[in-house]
């Protein structure tokens, strides 16, 4: 029968837990890691905004789309993996979220194609 127990947090979150399970990453980010990740996200945002001003200087439109989409996906994945703990949690959560997102992307891409959005 399962009992409710409290897993004592390690003083250093990098220490592996005694009851850790083998199918997830044991390295849980520290507060310092989170701050570094946030700084990285801020830099990516600055680059994104920079493309807006670059567009004033006639940057090729296809390049602008590529850069913005790549940066958007990178930021999305970083927040999902680290802030939402998908990297350290059960893969079931990842599949559940990815399935919803994949379904949404698929459905709405089909809708946009049907409406001749892409020409």
């Amino acid at each position, binding site marked *: 029968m*399962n*009992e*409710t*127990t*409290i*897993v004592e*947090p*390690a003083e250093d*979150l990098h220490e*592996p*837990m005694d*009851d*850790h*399970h083998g*199918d*997830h990453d*044991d390295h*849980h980010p520290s*507060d310092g890691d*989170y*701050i570094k*990740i*946030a700084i990285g996200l*801020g830099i990516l*945002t600055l680059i*994104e*905004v920079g*493309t*807006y001003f670059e567009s004033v200087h006639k940057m090729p*439109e296809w390049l*602008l*789309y590529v850069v*913005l*989409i790549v*940066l*958007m996906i990178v*930021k*999305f994945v970083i*927040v*999902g993996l*680290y*802030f*939402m*703990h998908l990297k*350290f*949690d*059960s893969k*079931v*959560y990842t599949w*559940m*979220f990815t*399935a*919803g997102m994949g*379904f*949404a992307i698929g*459905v*709405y891409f089909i*809708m*946009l194609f049907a409406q001749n*959005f892409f020409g």
Partner: protein
Amino acid sequence: MSAHVAPGMPNYGHNTNTGMSNAKLMMWLFLGSECLLFGALISTYMLYKNRFNDLRDGIPNSGTAPHDVFDIPFTSASSFVLLMSSLTMVLALSAIVRGQEARFRGWTLTTVLLGSVFIASQIYEFTVMVEEGVGYTTNIASSAFFSLTGFHGVHVTIGIIMLMSLFVMNLQGKLKQEHSETVEIVGLYWHFVDIVWILIFTVVYLFPQ
């Protein structure tokens, strides 16, 4: 069945078929469904963003498109504020997991403050847009824009209310270290509204018009 938990997180020993928290599973399922909601709103905006006929006079393209009145530097700043609120949210979770309740309350209040700044900036932006002739019913493009950003704003507001609830519950002694999964679940919602804004900011504001 043994419970599956991330290191440092409370082990509730879930008596479930999956060995995982049902509440957390429910939140992830909910967020998956929210992808469909925001997918609909974003794709609708993409479809209609160039349809800015003024509905009042029926003359083609006589109206003002939302993208004509965007203030990119201002919106960039508010986007950065929302992004940083994700950091403070995860720091709040980290604090409650360690049992540092005062620090948890501090980071939670900071997250609420940053979220409120974002909402205030959105309201200001909407006010300016209306003053410049782009309102909710001006044209199809503006309707799509305000529907999308308005829905997102409502989600952020609900997140702020949930965070304030956590703060009050902790003050009342009802939210302690062993309840940190509740904070984690609210955090998942908050991070989701942040990543949705990452998509909206790029697609709506930064994509070439």
